[in-house]
């Protein structure tokens, strides 16, 4: 990655593209865009667990679900506003992540992957069967929209700008963590766990931290989703969604937060772009993912920036 002015310029260009996105797309497209940006926050979280700390995390949707249910239930039971329920939801998700993370993150590679799949499926089972609290398969409805004072983010356009602000905050926090001691520790753990232990970085503690950051961002995404869609059900947070988040991250480039947003938008719009294939959508999607994995191992953002750099290098 380039550093200094190049990087800032990239962020400015990215922000300008995002700001102008709602113009020239249909109202339905705007809704898809909002949902993609909500997913993007969960994907940025995954960037910490998977991209930086290298944890094969296939259960991010579980934490998105925990955030969504916690925020929705607090709003329904106690009549609290989003700005109270959302932080509570983040704390609940963080506690959940620490409780399951401490035992589970001792596992590596595909064992961790299997355990996180199990976590996702178990959360889904609980959401489906704990009917007195979660409403079971019927889910929870009439979740209030987000507002500040008398102003409500009740249209897709208003919510879009709320999401931009949220994403800016998330990326600022994300970059701060990434460039802190903890961020460097995560990357060190990913690259060589043994050497980390030898140089005084507690691998397990660092992994739990990365896992918890992923969970907190996931829960934020879930809380935003609950109050945007006004309705949640267990199937919104199933294993397929966890895979979708990971695919978004990999398509964007595993260690790039801007890439995460790009990947989320691209995969979010994939059903629209592939509408012409009709019922074979998932087959085409699956094959497309394999093709991207094989042809662009660095993700779309990584591949584009490599092409861009080689062009620049040729002209200099």
């Amino acid at each position, binding site marked *: 990655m380039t550093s200094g002015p190049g990087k800032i310029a990239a962020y400015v260009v990215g922000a300008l593209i995002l700001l102008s996105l709602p113009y020239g797309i249909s109202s339905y497209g705007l809704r898809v865009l909002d949902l993609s940006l909500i997913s993007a926050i969960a994907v940025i979280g995954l960037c910490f667990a998977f991209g930086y700390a290298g944890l094969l995390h296939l259960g991010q949707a579980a934490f998105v679900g925990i955030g969504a249910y916690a925020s929705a239930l607090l709003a329904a039971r106690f009549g609290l506003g989003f700005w109270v329920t959302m932080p509570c939801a983040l704390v609940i998700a963080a506690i959940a992540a620490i409780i399951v993370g401490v035992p589970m993150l001792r596992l590596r590679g595909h064992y961790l992957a299997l355990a996180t799949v199990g976590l996702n*499926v178990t959360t889904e089972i609980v959401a489906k069967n704990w009917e007195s609290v979660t409403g079971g398969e019927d889910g929870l409805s009439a979740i209030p929209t987000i507002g500040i004072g008398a102003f409500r983010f009740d249209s897709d356009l208003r919510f879009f700008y709320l999401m931009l602000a949220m994403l800016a905050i998330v990326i600022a926090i994300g970059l701060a963590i990434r460039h802190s001691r903890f961020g460097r520790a995560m990357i060190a753990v990913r690259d060589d766990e043994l050497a980390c232990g030898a140089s005084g970085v507690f691998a397990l503690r660092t992994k739990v931290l990365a896992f918890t950051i992923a969970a907190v961002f996931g829960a934020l995404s879930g809380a935003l989703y609950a109050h945007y869609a006004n309705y949640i059900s267990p199937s919104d947070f199933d294993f397929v969604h966890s895979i979708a988040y990971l695919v978004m991250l990999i398509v964007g480039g595993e260690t790039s937060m801007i890439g995460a947003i790009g990947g989320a938008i691209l995969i979010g719009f994939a059903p629209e772009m592939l509408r012409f294939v009709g019922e074979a959508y998932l087959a085409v999607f699956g094959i497309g993912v394999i093709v991207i994995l094989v042809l662009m191992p660095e993700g779309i953002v990584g591949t584009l920036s490599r092409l861009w750099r080689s062009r620049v290098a040729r002209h200099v």
Partner: protein
Amino acid sequence: MLEFVQLLVNALAIGCIYAVIALSFEIAYEATGVVNFATGQLVTVGAFVGASAIAYGHGNMPVSYAMTIAAMAAVGLAFFVTVYLPLRGKSVVTIVIGTVAAGIAIQNVSQLVWGPLPAVVASPFGGRILHLSKTAIPFHSIFVIATAVILMGCIWLLLYRTPLGKQFRAVAQDPEVAMLMGIRVWRLHGVTWILVAVLAGIAGLLLSPIWFIDVSMGDALALDAFAAAVIGGFGSIPGAICGGVLVGLCEILGAAYISSAYKDALVFLLMIGFLLLRPQGIFGERIGDRG
């Protein structure tokens, strides 16, 4: 008590099917290093190909079963060419996502071919039931247990008593050295994927008369089989059987005596318990890399 015996036989039958799926998963991992997240979907394909073959076979079960196994061998070869070869040598995560994506595609194609409705398939033994004193045991359950045990025995003989098995184990240990020793690693990997798909297909065939089969059952099956593999110990054939039976018992008895809604969560807890307390599984793992 009578009910308990019937549940036990049922659990053993289901457990044996999980063991066969677990073995398919483990052979893929041991021989080619691929964690195959499309295992469940391969079982689904086996179940539905079997259902179609039985429907067209007009009750000639051996022919229908043979046709299904041949078809699954072709599926395995196709999987080898279209999924394994492109993903070969990539990082673990690329392979995981790649096989998950392959599973999604296979499931979607299955739905296009066979439709979303569940199907029920006849057993080669019809609905015949064995009455032992007062317990009623379906013939099919006995057939499943016998087939699975014989199949596992054959696989064991193949791996440990034939030259081909020796090559398999050599490639599992170190593909490069195996290649230097003159083993045709490529061809062996092709054979591996055929075996993987055939095992999954047999599991599907055995399963289809017990459950309603539907095209989205793959992930749930795969999770139970993964749990069986972890519990029994990766790469061990007796381990796969023990793990499968334990998962079957946990599920069936858990559903009967604790809660049918939470039976899958019970299996997950059992697996996590094993991962934490005995990570190498009941029968241990020869090459320990799970930390």
